[in-house]
């Protein structure tokens, strides 16, 4: 801890490093931000975890969570704000951290903060013709007609704000696609986009030239809605972010609230939550495996994946009541104790799945057509993965050790030993096959984890599944951040509380948005068929990106 503080003090000379917060925090003037960010990056803090926009009432600000990948538990927080509410402007760091590109667009979309130096300041989730910025606390755009008329050309303009040599702010814009480009829409309704993602792809024959992801078709404003809900009321929404890792997302939010409120969760609940997390991960990877096979044209594999996944759904249903979204974790523990049959069912399932994994390998992994398409195709280097923030199985396939279960162990993961599955640790470059096979390997490892957790479960007392929680949960004022590994990557919950029963601001760090941003660099100059396959190998879920 001392070490990080020193590093941070060195990067931001003359600034007070806050005491008593979760991570070392520095508050900066807007003009200082870029210098400090660059110094941090040079000091090894190369991974921008999340970028959160804030409306403080009298000012707009941004919060940067930055981590070091060499020493992964090192997280520092930078904060900056501007009091100009009419025309708020901050400096962009997208040339320092590539992943800031989409994050800053998101902040611009929600808060209207313009980033100087950002080269594509379009709206990201809302329509380009939307008036107003909904996350501002004083936004009233819903009272009048919120849209205005704009032309199709204006929708494709990428506004830019730069500072000229004379220090004056200049506004300009560039067109997204050239006039003669052959642009094909993939989505929002397309079998291979795994949801309502809209990709505009510029093609030269079969060759992909440029991909522009267009988000927001399933944007529900969950973060904004959370501001008017109590903490337990937010829980059902977390399931619906990444619906394939619903249990994990819900767990993350519970952990964040419990940490803030100082609630001690019984060990039994922690273990069961982690078993559910791992089962969710297995189910998600099975579906991801099947979807990838289906996107490559092998429909039978998809049915096999679905069939195995169904067994997990049955286990969920028996104990929790829900299937896809078990709705099992609540603040303080679980909603009810496990079904008496639970342990037997899970043990049976583990044996079954181990047998079936072999079959899956025979059906697809060894298939010459499948390997011919996946090997040496769609490279993602470790540097690029870190720069874009694409963690999870995708990052680990490129040799980036980014498993939050290992970096910042939470819940029952502290209690057990397990392996982090990493491929290409030496070459630091992963291809599509690595991203494919790592999911099947992770299923195996998850089954091992569940076995270990089941042993631990025997030591706990039956019926001890929930801590005593106050009827109305109020968090002490402050910022809380919880990192969790969901099936697709790092899923983080950021809660800013002002002491009321509602959160002041909630932000979910979505792994899928960063995965989609990796699509363009990986697929460039590949074929259409590769684009679909690589998209499936990244395994993004759109409601998670859109929130």
């Amino acid at each position, binding site marked *: 801890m001392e070490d990080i503080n020193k590093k941070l003090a060195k990067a931001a000379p003359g600034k007070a490093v806050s005491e008593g917060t979760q991570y070392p925090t520095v508050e900066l003037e807007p003009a200082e931000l870029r210098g400090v960010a660059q110094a941090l990056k040079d000091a090894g803090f190369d991974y921008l975890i999340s970028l959160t926009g804030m409306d403080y009432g009298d000012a707009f600000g941004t919060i940067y969570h930055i981590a070091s990948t060499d020493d992964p538990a090192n997280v520092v927080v930078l904060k900056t704000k501007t009091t100009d509410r009419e025309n708020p402007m901050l400096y962009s760091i997208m040339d320092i951290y590539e992943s800031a590109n989409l994050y800053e667009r998101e902040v611009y979309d929600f808060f209207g903060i313009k980033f100087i130096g950002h080269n594509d300041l379009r709206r990201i989730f809302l329509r380009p013709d939307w008036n107003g910025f909904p996350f501002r606390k004083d936004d009233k755009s819903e009272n009048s007609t919120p849209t205005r008329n704009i032309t199709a050309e204006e929708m494709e303009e990428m506004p830019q704000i730069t500072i000229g040599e004379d220090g004056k702010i200049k506004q300009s814009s560039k067109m997204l696609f050239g006039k003669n480009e052959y642009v094909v829409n993939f989505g929002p309704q397309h079998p*291979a986009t795994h949801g309502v993602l809209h990709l505009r792809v510029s093609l030269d024959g*079969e060759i992909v030239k440029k991909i522009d992801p267009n988000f927001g078709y399933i944007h529900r404003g969950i973060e904004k809605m959370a501001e008017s809900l109590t903490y337990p009321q937010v829980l059902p929404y977390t399931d619906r972010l990444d619906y394939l890792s619903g249990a994990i997302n819900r767990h993350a939010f519970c952990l964040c609230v419990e940490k803030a409120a100082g609630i001690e969760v019984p060990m039994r609940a922690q273990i069961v939550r982690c078993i559910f997390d791992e089962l969710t991960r297995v189910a998600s990877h099975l579906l991801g495996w099947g979807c990838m096979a289906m996107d490559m*044209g*092998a429909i039978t594999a998809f049915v096999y994946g679905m069939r195995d996944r169904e067994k997990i759904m049955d286990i969920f249903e028996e104990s929790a009541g829900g299937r896809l979204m078990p709705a099992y974790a609540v603040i303080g523990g679980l909603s009810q104790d496990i079904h008496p049959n639970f342990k037997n069912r899970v043990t049976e399932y583990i044996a079954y799945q181990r047998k079936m994994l072999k079959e899956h390998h025979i059906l697809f992994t060894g*298939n010459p057509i499948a390997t011919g398409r996946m090997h040496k195709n769609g490279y993602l280097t470790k540097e690029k993965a870190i720069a874009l923030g694409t963690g999870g199985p995708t990052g680990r396939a490129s040799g980036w050790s980014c498993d939050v279960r290992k970096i910042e162990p939470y819940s029952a993961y502290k209690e057990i030993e397990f392996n982090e599955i990493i491929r290409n640790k030496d070459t630091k470059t992963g291809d599509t096959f690595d991203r494919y096979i790592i999911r099947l390997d992770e299923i195996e490892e998850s089954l091992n984890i569940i076995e270990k957790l089941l042993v631990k479960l025997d030591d706990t007392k039956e019926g001890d599944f929930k801590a005593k929680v106050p009827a109305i949960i109020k968090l002490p004022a402050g910022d809380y951040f919880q990192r969790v590994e969901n099936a697709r990557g790092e899923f983080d919950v950021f809660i800013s509380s002002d002491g009321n029963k509602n959160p002041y601001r909630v932000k979910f760090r979505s792994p899928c948005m960063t995965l989609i941003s990796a699509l363009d660099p990986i697929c460039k100059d590949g074929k259409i068929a590769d684009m679909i396959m690589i998209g499936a190998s990244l395994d993004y879920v759109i409601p998670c990106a859109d929130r």
Partner: protein
Amino acid sequence: MSLELSGLINAIHEGLTGAIEAQWLVSLIEYVLVGAGLLALYALIALFLIIFERKICAWFQCRLGPNRVGPWGIFQVFADMLKIMFKEIIPLKHNDKLLFYAGPCIVVIGSFLTFGGLQFAEGVHGVDLNIGVFYLLAVSSISIVGVMLAGWSSNNKYALIGAMRSGAQVISFELSACLSMMAVVILGGSMNLSTLMEKQEDLWFIFQAPVPMLIAMVIYLIAAHAETNRGPFDLPEAESELTAGYHVEYSGMTFGYFYVAEYCNLFINAAIGALVFLGGWQAFHIPGCDGFNAVMDMCPSYVWFFLKCLFFIFMSLWVRWSFPRLRIDQLLHLEWKIMLPFSLFNILLVAVWVIIF
């Protein structure tokens, strides 16, 4: 009493000649009857193959498949057929109407014309051309024109990419299919299907010259499978990439035509394969074993023919439901750099074989 159909056909012919004096009228009635028979067969085969594929695919995928309408769900296809006939054909704006509707018709005509040249049983065939093999290959290639027209006239980017893929694919694989057929023609010494059938009476071609014929058969099966645009060669449709490729804009029965033609092409390819490699409607004979041959002859020739077709169709479905799709460059690589040299070499091999043995 023989179970063969040729007796029935002869009886009809004699009955008609006896009843009607004018020879041209007899011929006319017979042409109409043959045409109607083939048309009915065409529709029935498509229907059968649809239920067959659904059942087989369900079997591969650990499902049940259609099982509600009628015994084993066999009436499901009739219900589906009626439904698709009554579905609205959604007209498009900004496209070439004539070419748009000509596309599916050409596809169906192309595959239907092939039926005229096939031999279904002993003495049961439409026309017995002296260039029968050539005719079959020629008319079955007409379909691609319809596919290209459909993709082009849809005025849709997916459809255009699909049609272009289809053009590249079918024209390439046609080469290998024809060259492997050349090997058969060299061995049989004729393009006439009846002659080829006679030559296979004692022993099928696949057993007469096992090495070159096996190579030719494998190449033919791959190429024919690719021509039907079915997985792993379903790039023109590529459901997950181009949604439905060249027929993405078609609805109702215009789409139904593509669908029917696809299944009939599946049958036609299997039938041609069965005719030239596995002896068509000829029973399995071993020269010298007269008792065994007599037992084999008890099964009527059309049963033999359709069993062989089913065997090939099953192989095709097996491949389709197991393999992922190839990429376009891998597909062309497979054809031009692997299969084409092999087929050319095979022609040389079969010529040497004919001279030596």
